[in-house]
C-alpha cells in the first residue's frame, strides 16, 4: 500500500506543479498584452540577455564549427567526400547546434541569474513591496524578461550561426588546406532559407522557455538562501531539459 501511496503522492505533486506552471504562464502571457509596458526594463533585459551573452555564445559557436569541420573531415576523407564538409557544417550549425548550444549556454547564464534575482527579491519581500507600491510583479519583473528572452535569442543564434560557419571555414582553409572560394560556394550551395528560419524559431522558443523557467522558479522560491539556491538549480536544469525535449519535437514538426 505504501508503494501505491508514493505513486499517488508523486502524481499529485506533478499535477500540482504542472497546474501552477500553466497558471503562471497564462498570467505572464496575459500581462504581456496589456499595458502598461515597462520599455526601460525591457531594454535593460535585452542588453543583459543579448549583448552580454555574445562572448559566451560566440566562443561556443566558433569552437563548435571548428570541431565539426575536423570531425567531418576525418570521417568523410575515408570515402573521398571532403567537398560535403562545408554543407555538413552549415546545416548542423543552423539547424541544430546553433540554437541548442546557444540555448544551453544562455540557460546557464541567464536562467540562473533570473532565478537568483527574483528568488532573492521574493525572500526579502521585495516582490510584496512591489505589490504595495501599486505595481504588478508579473508586469514589472516577469514580462520584460519573457519579451527580452524571446526576442534576443534568435538574434544571438543568428550571430552564432555566422560565427560557427566561420569557425568551420577557419579550420578547413588554414588547417585542411581547402580552397577558400570553393568552401564558401559549397556553404551556400545547399543551404535553404528554411534551415536558418527553423533554427531561429527554435531559438525564440528556447529563449521563452529559459526566461519562463528562470522567472517561475525565482518567483516561487521560499525559505531563504537555500530556497534561492534550489530555485537557481531547478531553473537551469528544467530549462536545459525542456530545450532538449522541445528541440526534438520542433525538429519533428519542421522536417517531417
Amino acid at each position, binding site marked *: 500500500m505504501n508503494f501505491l501511496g508514493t505513486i499517488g503522492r508523486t502524481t499529485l505533486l506533478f499535477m500540482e506543479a504542472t497546474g501552477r506552471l500553466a497558471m503562471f504562464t497564462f498570467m505572464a502571457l496575459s500581462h504581456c498584452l496589456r499595458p502598461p509596458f515597462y520599455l526601460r526594463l525591457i531594454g535593460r533585459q535585452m542588453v543583459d540577455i543579448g549583448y552580454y551573452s555574445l562572448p559566451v555564445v560566440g566562443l561556443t559557436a566558433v569552437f563548435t564549427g571548428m570541431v565539426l569541420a575536423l570531425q567531418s573531415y576525418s570521417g568523410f576523407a575515408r570515402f573521398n567526400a571532403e567537398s560535403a564538409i562545408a554543407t555538413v557544417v552549415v546545416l548542423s550549425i543552423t539547424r541544430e547546434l546553433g540554437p541548442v548550444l546557444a540555448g544551453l549556454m544562455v540557460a546557464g547564464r541567464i536562467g540562473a541569474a533570473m532565478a537568483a*534575482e527574483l528568488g532573492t*527579491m521574493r525572500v*526579502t*519581500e*521585495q516582490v*510584496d*513591496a512591489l*505589490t*504595495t*507600491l*501599486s*505595481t*504588478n510583479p508579473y508586469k*514589472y519583473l516577469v514580462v520584460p524578461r519573457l519579451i527580452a528572452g524571446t526576442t534576443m535569442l534568435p538574434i544571438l543564434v543568428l550571430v552564432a550561426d555566422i560565427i560557427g560557419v566561420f569557425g568551420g571555414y577557419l579550420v578547413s582553409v588554414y588547417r585542411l588546406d581547402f580552397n577558400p572560394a570553393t568552401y564558401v560556394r559549397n556553404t551556400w550551395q545547399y543551404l535553404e532559407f528554411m534551415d536558418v528560419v527553423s533554427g531561429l524559431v527554435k531559438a525564440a522558443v528556447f529563449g521563452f522557455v529559459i526566461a519562463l523557467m528562470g522567472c517561475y522558479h525565482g518567483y516561487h522560491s521560499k525559505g531563504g538562501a537555500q530556497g534561492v539556491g534550489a530555485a537557481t538549480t531547478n531553473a537551469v536544469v528544467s530549462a536545459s531539459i525542456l530545450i532538449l525535449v522541445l528541440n526534438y519535437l520542433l525538429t519533428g514538426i519542421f522536417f517531417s
Partner: protein
Amino acid sequence: MSAVNGTNGAGGTPKISLRGVRKAFGPKVVLDGIDLDVARGESVVIIGGSGTGKSVLLKCILGILQPDQGTIRIDGEDTTHVTGREREAVMRKFGMLFQGAALFDSLPVWENVAFGLIQGQGVGRREAKERAIATLGAVGLTPEVADLFPSELSGGMQKRVGLARAICTRPEVIFFDEPTTGLDPIMSDVINDLIVKCVQDLGATALSITHDMASARKISNRIAMLHKGKLVWVGPTSEIDNSGNAFVDQFIHGRAEGPIQMQIRAF
C-alpha cells in the same frame, strides 16, 4: 463590542474594518475569526509572539494573501477578493514599511523612494526625484544619500529609506511590519519618533505589528494582542498595564511562565 471599535475620530466609517477573518494553511489555522476596526487617523498596534499570525493578518489586509473566510473593508468598501486594477487602486491608499525594509537593491535610494510616484502615479522622473529628496529630508536623510544604493546603507538608514518610500505617495493608511526589529535601542527610538511624526503630518491611519513593547507604547493609540489566531485583548495604550489579561501581562513583562506557550513552527 466597545473594545473592537475605534475611539478616535469615531462617527464615520472605520478606515479598516475586519470581520470574522479566518486563514488556514493546510490543517494549521493561523487566523481564527479576527474582528477589528481601525478608525480614521488612529494608530493601532498588534502585538503578539513570533508565529502568532501577525504578518499573515497584515498580508491579508494588503491583499497579498486571501483570507478563507470573513470580510475586509477599507473605507467601507469590501476589498477582500478585489484583484487586478481595482486592487492597484486600493493599494494607492496604502504605504508599507517592511520588516527588512525590502528596498529594491537594483535601484538607487531616490528611485526606491520615488517608486510609487513614478510607477503608481505616473509622475515624471525629474519631479519624482525632487519629491523623493524632500521626503528623504523628512526622515532625516541628506540629499547625498539619494544616489547611493541600498546595499551601501546601514540597517537603520535602510529603515529610514523604507519609511520614506512608504510615505512618499502620501498614503491614507500606513502599515508597519516590525519597524524596530534588528535596530539598536537608540535607532529604534529614532524610528519610533519618525513614525509618530510622519503619521501625524500626513493625518494617516496606521496599523503596525511588533513585539517591541517600547515601540508599541510609543506609536499607538490602541493595542490589540493576537494569540493563537484570536485577538485576546484590545484596548487603549494607556490601559495596557492594567489590562487584567493574563496573556497581555505575560507578554508585556516578558515572562517565560504564563498562559502563552512558545510556538515552534513558523508558517
